[in-house]
């Protein structure tokens, strides 16, 4: 009993090391008034195998994880159930690939402001952990979106 309790404490103490995702350079594409949807982009690196399974944000009624694909120059965008994050591999959510889709926007995304987003991950044991990030809004039409900002590193922790 005592041993297993110690084991649990140890496991808890160790947990953040084994279930951590580094989020770099998160940004949201700016919108115009009345626009209902936009995308959030970022780079995710998991220390051990994990999956991005959901996301939430106070600025959006619905948040989904989307994949974009081109077939014969036809653009197709689909919700995916989860984005796999193999250990140590940086997964880039960027235009032309994956994005976190913010829908039913409650306000305009104004360039320079910051949007809080909660990322929900699942480790290989199926245990969920969340991470709060702050994504900077890049003004719509601003040159080379996402490339002109200083790197931001944000780390996730098991809750």
């Amino acid at each position, binding site marked *: 009993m005592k041993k297993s309790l110690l084991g649990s404490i140890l496991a808890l103490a160790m947990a953040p090391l084994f279930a951590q995702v580094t989020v770099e350079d998160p940004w949201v*594409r*700016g919108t*115009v*008034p*009345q*626009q*209902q*949807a*936009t*995308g959030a982009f970022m780079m995710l690196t998991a220390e051990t195998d994990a999956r991005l399974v959901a996301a939430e944000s106070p600025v959006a009624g*619905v948040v*989904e994880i*989307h994949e*974009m694909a*081109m077939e014969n*120059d*036809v*653009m*197709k*965008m*689909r*919700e995916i159930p989860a984005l796999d994050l193999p250990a140590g591999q940086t997964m880039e959510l960027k*235009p*032309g690939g994956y*994005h976190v*889709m*913010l*829908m*039913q926007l409650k306000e305009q995304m104004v360039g320079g402001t910051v949007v809080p987003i909660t990322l929900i991950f699942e480790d290989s044991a199926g245990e969920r952990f969340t991470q709060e990030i702050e994504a900077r809004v890049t*003004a*719509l*039409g601003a*040159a*080379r*979106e996402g490339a002109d900002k200083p790197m931001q590193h944000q780390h996730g922790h098991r809750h």
Partner: protein
Amino acid sequence: MLSMLQTLNGRFLLVLALVSASLIGCGEQNVRFNATDITGANYGQDFELVDSHGQLRTLEDFRGEVVMIYFGFIQCPDVCPTALMRAVEVKDALGPSGDKFRVVYITVDPERDTPEIVSAYLAAFDPGFVGLHPTMEELPEVAKSFRVFYRKVPTGDSYTMDHTATSFVYDTQGRLRLAVSHSMEVAPIVEDVRTLLQAAR
């Protein structure tokens, strides 16, 4: 005598035909484009659509300009703004002749793309970009006439649009010349637009 004249005449015509063919060759066939050359295509010939300010527009309105037409929808987080941003960069790279490069956006989502949203959206990229608004009734016909595919796809309790992401480029005479793939970079497009502008001089 008559038959000899006819033969001479025939030869003369043949020579004339060869000479003019080679002349045309110099003028036209040496023009190489980076984008797909669709000169002579029998689709995407024209449009007659209302812009974001309620004006009826046709290709004729843009004579003297190289026109790039893009079909899209504003609730698009990714491809449409990327394509518009690329168009801005092409225009910037053209320098002073950028004034003769016109971007025309045709919505495939008339339900949500109101004139207010589209004009505000395009203005964020470039005030010269023109938004066109087919009605729900006009859209199938417009898409067909440009061989553009679009489809409404439900997502969450909303929807997204699958659509052709190709940009169509017209010369200064309003003739459809190029199909520009979504993946094409800025520099080769700039080169093609320059070629079309120079041919007009």
